[in-house]
């Protein structure tokens, strides 16, 4: 199967309305894309993503979910929000892909590996 990887800059992602951020990820993954976010999701955004993924699975028997791994994102939404307001960048990187495409995710605090 062809693997398509889409990189999304922190600028492009942060310019989206919060609701659209999660939609963007879901839409890409449902098109069998691996999406790499230059700036990692916050833990709260990950939680929101998990909920949205469950809603999408509930709607269709074809979509079976995601594989996700974040690296180096240890800030909560409040602290990362302040950093962004001051023009800085919150750390981290998040990779999300369709569960049916990603065979295995290997990770440790410094490294992520996706196998297809």
């Amino acid at each position: 199967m062809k693997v398509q990887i889409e990189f999304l800059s922190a600028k492009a992602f942060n310019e989206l309305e919060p609701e659209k951020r999660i939609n963007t990820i879901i839409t890409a993954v449902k098109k069998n894309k691996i999406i790499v976010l230059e700036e990692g999701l916050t833990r709260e955004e990950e939680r929101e993503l998990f909920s949205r993924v469950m809603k999408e699975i509930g709607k269709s028997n074809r979509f079976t979910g995601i594989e996700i791994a974040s690296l180096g994102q240890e800030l909560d939404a409040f602290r990362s929000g302040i950093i962004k307001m001051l023009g800085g960048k919150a750390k981290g990187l998040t990779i999300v892909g369709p569960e049916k495409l990603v065979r295995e995710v290997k990770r440790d605090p410094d490294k992520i590996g996706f196998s297809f």
Partner: protein
Amino acid sequence: MSLGIYGNVNTGKSTLANRICIDWTGEPLSEVSEIPHETREVQKKERVVIRVNGKKLIINLLDMPGITTKVDYREFIPFGIGKKKAQARAKEATKGIIEAIKWLEHVDAALVVMDACKDPYTQVNITILGNLEARKIPVILVANKIDKKKARPDKIREAFPQHDIVEISALKGDNINKLYEAIAKHAR
């Protein structure tokens, strides 16, 4: 105090909930099976009274559906469940997971249960812990299934050194008193 039992699928959350309920009320709380997503709704037992070292705790125990980022109805079929029932079960599972995620904001303390035979450093565990930490909710990590030969609770300690960890076998009851002591220590 509401105490949520969180974790990935099939880590032994319901076995632990039953162990706690049987120890202190004489009755189990949840159905247990090897089929993934056996718990598809939050199971609640109110006013479980735990007495540890002279301290009395009244707990509302919440056994949460296992949190995951994927649910495929086909994983139920090898267990002899027909396609339509498997699809219905998958749908129920997704609703249960959403409910469990919502509860992350409302519990007073959490036991995050990990299977000591499996890699603990998963995004699900990291996200659950990150959300509990963000709300300053007290957390005890439970390294479960230490009765199994393959168990490596040290891996859980390595992955999450910032948290208190209790190594138990919910099935056999090993170290369960240590867990009660930890709950009493963290009770607000």
